């Protein structure tokens, strides 16, 4: 999982920033929210709830990100 910075911290996300596997900083602007959902995790192993967003960026990419606690992670990118 790749940590990702989401702006603004409250409300619908508009901008994203993360570091790709090659160590390069990546920025994206959110064009629209395609979907959102909840995943409660393996509660019996004390996993915490995740809140997922499926986003479309200005560049036409689709990003799946999730929030666990206060931290956001990037879980999937497709173009």
């Amino acid at each position, binding site marked *: 999982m790749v940590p990702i910075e989401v702006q603004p911290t409250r409300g619908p996300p508009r901008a994203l920033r993360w570091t790709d596997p090659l160590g390069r900083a990546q920025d994206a602007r959110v064009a629209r929210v395609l979907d959102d*959902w909840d995943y409660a995790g393996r*509660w019996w192993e004390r996993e915490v709830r995740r809140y997922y967003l499926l986003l479309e960026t200005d560049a036409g990419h689709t990003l799946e990100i999730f929030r666990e606690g206060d931290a956001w992670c990037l879980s999937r990118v497709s173009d």
Partner: protein
Amino acid sequence: MPVTRQRLTAALCTHSSFSFGAGTAGPTTLVRRAAELGYGAIALTDTINVTGGAELFAAAREHGIQALIGATLPVRLGDHVYPLVAIAASRNGYRTLNELITHAHAREERDVPWPVLLSHTADLIVLTGGRDGLPARLLAARRVNALEARMRELRGAFEGRLFVQLFHDRLPWDARRARVLRRFAQSLSLPVVAAPQVRFAKPDDYRLYDALVCARLGISVQEPHPERPRNSAGAMPSPDEVAARLPFPEALQNANFVAESAAFELLPERLVTPAARIPAGLTADQQLERRCFEALLTRYDVETLPPARRKLEEELATVRALGLAEFFLVAAEVTDYCRAHGILAAGRGSAAASICCYLLGITAVDPVKYDLLFERFLHTGKATMPDVDIDISSARRDEVIAWVESRFGAATEAMVCNKITYRLPLAIQDLGRALGLPMDQRTKLSRSLGRDFRGMSPRRAREAAVAFDEVLGDAPAKEVLIELLSAMESAHPRHIAPHSGGVVLSREPLTHYAPLERSSGGIKIVQLDKDDAEALGLIKLDLLGLRMLAALERAREEVFRLEGVWLDLADLPDDTRVWDLISAGATLGLFQVESPSQIHTSRVMRARTMRDLAHQIALIRPGPIQSGTVHPYLRRRQGLEPITYWHPSLEAVLGKTYGVLLFQEDVLRIGVHFAGMTWTEADRFRKKVSSFRDVADIEPDRQAFVEGAERHVGATREEAERVFEAVKSYQGFGFAESHAWAFAIHAYASGWLRVHYPAEYLAAIMTEEPGMWSPSTKRHEARAWDVPFVPLDVNRSGVHYRVEWARRDGKPVKAVRPPLCAVTGVSADAARSVMLERLRHGPFVSVDDLYARVALDRDVLEVLARAGALDALATRRAALYRVGVLTGSAPAGEQPLLAAPTPTPGLEPLGVEGRLVWDMHTTRFSTLELHPLDLVRDQLREWGASSLAQVGRQARGARVRTAGLVVSRQRPPTAKGFAFYILEDGPVRAQLIISPDLWSAHRTLVRDAALIVADATIVDTGYQLTLKAETLAMLEGPFAVRGYEFG
């Protein structure tokens, strides 16, 4: 133009814990949550039941919101089942719903076939279901044409009452699904409705819900399954949250519209009586009067007739006012049937205070003679159902119930159900399995709970941490399991089961009130428990199987068989010897007075009349114990302290109980005659006193009580306060006086038979097993009764314990013969087949002969050999060997074609100790006089332990070391942590008192020990040998006795 935002006010698809394994919250919790979130209406839509309905409506009334009743119906279409939500739009719709549910339960698949649904549509509103529903699934499978066809059929059947259900479970693409469903509905001109499925009250309950689903599916949490939730979306959402997820104003509006369309009151104001048989031309009231007045003249003489007539006229006026004449007549039909068929039956409880019940033959107690209070049973202000409980010989209760069903019709009669709620052991089994705990670990954990914790609600799991630590140690699952258990509601239902005796009889088909189903044992039950049945206006008769009545009936038949005397057990002569027996405390085997505490009370009380006996029976109950009644009562009766009253006016109420509170009626009478309440108020007050759990619940009544007493009898505030405190402490279960009298009659009859026909009575109680003592204890008590046993014998034993003439010291004596059925694993049918063959072709001459003539399973033959039933044919070892040889050579029950197989080698006969062990393992007792403790006598001597017989000869206060077989374990909630064990050594028994400290120090020992060695101080001697334990040790023995347990 301003846009008014539509606000959702109804939660239409709500599952409670009555959707067994698919909901976590009770109806009351859901109503409370709905009210908190601002809903104005809530529909309960549990899966094929409406069991939570009465609770829902009562809770909704309390919280000021509207209740709707519906159900989720699994509807079968070909090979697939689709859940569909049906909500009753009226009382008529409720009946339709119940018919559909009844239909589903009548099918092995427990579903509703599509054509049946389409033919039961009256006043039902239908929602198409959530994620598993027909539209969602067929759309996902792209079977749009098939879906359209089915929806058109539904639309035709439920014209204007079919709604496409929109949901959003916060899963990927749920928003899109909702839009697609809406578009589909629009294409067919069908309305949509916002109705997310609620499975629990708050998001935190998600874990418990998931675990319960896993338990229901029989899988562990590690296994994925489509029915498992993936998040907490099953929690009741706020109306705003629904509006945000399903932003379709018409869907919200339609939800509110459904709620408005389905408004009706489920709980009626009046009770509805079943239909009695009434001669043409008479009304029910006239028929009741006719029967009562006819009996009045035969039951009372010139002297007693006037007060009896007055009482009868008053009662009849009350019965008329309440419209309950048919109820009395129906109850009388049941007891008439029993009498006509020689079945012992007698009304118990508050009904025994009714002269109508007495004259109709429902009860055997004369309420005029004993001045019993009718108002405890019925009064004009009583809105609840009168209790008529009829005890029936347990051996023939099924016969009576079958008659009731045929008499009243299959559609109008059923047993009420019991809501079986989770206790810790069962919850550990279900949730532990879901968490992947292996079976042996779950079983070990359940066992380790012991008497301390096993009766607890799962909610209190943390209090049993010591047991969890003992079995699970530091396993990570331990804490998760405890958290899940702690999250359960205190009365979380697991399933429903038939009530022990409550039968509802209705004038209309029972589906007017609730669905019917068959229990796993085949008993027809209505999906209402006794309180729900009452709330819905049904009248219940309790037809209870009472083993003691079966024992009395059996003893009466044995006496008739042997002596040719037919006893009238309801009218036995008063006999000094019976009172002497009871006063001596020799009451083991007698009805209601055989427990250790009753034995002790018998000796102090020294009952000489039926009134004494009724009082004694009522005395040892939680109510009198907690109100401190027992000691003052006994001391005042013995003249050891003066009889005083809290206020002079109470002498009239408490005079016959020496100034103390003994009966429920005393609380009622104090309410009316002291505190100036009406009977209705006093009855409500009595109920509160007997059932309150928290002092805060009863305190609000104090002021009215005190002021009432000041006003009504001029009591001072202090006096009134004192009486209130006394009444308040009469907490928990106490007897109605009428009930105590009803039981006293049976208790006296049991004592009378014990004195006059001990062998017949012993055979009867060995067969029917009433009371608390094991067969082994009764067998040793028989030595004190001077009744010998004769051995189990395949050529003489039958199905029941029988008395036969034997010879002892050359003289004839009645002895008890155990039946073949006494052997564990031998059914009545197997025993009958042996008896029949014996009757047809004479006694069996050898094991080979028995084997060739009766087709018995090898297991049965082996256990009969081990139990000694074949002793007359061969020694036990030889018989067992022979059974093995024969079963390997030819089928049982057929004459062999070939010569007899190999002869039996010479085997050493079993010693007497070996026979005892085999007896105990196979029949739970032995006809030998040897006691299990005799097998470890050497060890006991080594320990320096005296026998109980030796201990009994020592004085009070002596310190002893002794031992005994544990035959009873009691730790009643009223005993402040003390436990009372009964140790047995031959015919001698002793009560061992275990203090709370000792209990805590020896938690495992007191749970597991079969034989206990104790250092103790003698507290009491004689029949009630009582020891106070100081140290405890456990001795390994060859077996344990499955004795009485309580607390």
